[in-house]
């Protein structure tokens, strides 16, 4: 029965072919540094899942953002766990991504024909930093507030465009309800949309081009 159901879908969707291209593809003999991409992907999925669940209780309004987070941490069953995972995995993700970049850089994996994989990767890294920046404001505590004050001021020092960027980020001159709302929107819609798009390209390229060998070793 299960076999028949599978065959029905396989005939129409080409699942078998999908499986063999994605999972049974040939790879050179590599080492543990090559697991950092998968580790980042895993953490990214963890962020998406825990993030979606956090939105079930989190409210991006200055009046209650802090209270809603307190409620998640102290009132909701396993809220401390879901929030804790989101918090720590955000930090870990930046670390794994950075090490992953170092690995691809030092192994020369960014060279022809993989330049696009590198470029999408750089953008993914920047977007992830953006996720961290916008997420950090959401708990709306003293640390969030002042970290965002500083970060937006830093954008303000950009030559010529600084003042404009500063106001766009804050939604005006003050760090206000508008800032919280737009950071939330960026954190859960805009930046994740960019991540999904670029991650899609990044993954397709990896499957299509295969991964590079360790330099100096034979195939």
């Amino acid at each position: 029965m299960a076999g028949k159901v599978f065959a029905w879908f396989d005939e129409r969707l080409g699942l078998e072919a999908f499986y063999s291209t994605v999972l049974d593809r040939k790879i050179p003999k590599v080492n543990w540094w090559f697991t950092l991409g998968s580790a980042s992907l895993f953490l990214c999925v963890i962020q998406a899942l825990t993030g979606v669940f956090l939105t079930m209780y989190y409210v991006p309004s200055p009046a209650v953002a802090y209270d809603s987070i307190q409620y998640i941490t102290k009132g909701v069953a396993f809220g401390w766990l879901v929030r804790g995972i989101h918090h720590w995995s955000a930090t870990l993700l930046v670390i794994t991504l950075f090490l992953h970049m170092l690995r691809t850089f030092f192994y020369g994996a960014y060279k022809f024909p993989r330049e696009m994989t590198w470029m999408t990767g750089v953008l993914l890294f920047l977007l992830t930093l953006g996720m961290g920046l916008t997420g950090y404001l959401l708990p709306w505590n003293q640390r969030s507030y002042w970290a965002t004050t500083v970060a937006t001021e830093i954008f303000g020092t950009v030559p010529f465009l600084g003042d404009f960027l500063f106001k766009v980020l804050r939604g005006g001159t003050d760090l206000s309800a508008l800032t919280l709302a737009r950071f939330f929107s960026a954190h859960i819609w805009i930046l994740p949309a960019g991540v999904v798009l670029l991650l899609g390209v990044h993954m397709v390229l990896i499957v299509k081009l295969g991964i590079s060998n360790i330099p100096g070793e034979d195939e």
Partner: protein
Amino acid sequence: MVKKTTSPNLSRRDFTKIVMTFLGSIMGAMVGLPIIGFIVSPALKTQELDDWISLGAFDGYPIGTPTLFSFTRSKVNGWERTTSSYGAYVLRKTESELKVYSNVCTHLSCRVKWDEDAHAFLCPCHDARFDINGAILYGPPPRPMDRYEFKIEEGNILIHLTGE
């Protein structure tokens, strides 16, 4: 598929599959069960109400006309204090006979209103009607109007508010 799990026939591939399925299920449960708890958590917290509310002096209510007494109670839901309003219809029939109805329609919880001309409680939602004794005259409600338990202390009417 695995047919025999005893040694020489268990291939490395099958062994890996079994171990992966086993460990995967444990990891899935470790993450999945807390998530279910996380989602249903507010449904499992109940705040029992058990209060005696004073509706004021018995003598202050007219005889023979159901009279509405409104009051509010608040509870903490998550990070918010939620205020709910309640309405009690006091019907002082004779000097000694007293009935206190809840104004919550027994159909789907809209609020009923006493209509002097119709001489009935009317529900605006699905056109239910209850007579002065709370009995169903017309419409979809499954049971007569609910009544509050009450007591009279020093001439004041007190009703018992229970539930969640």
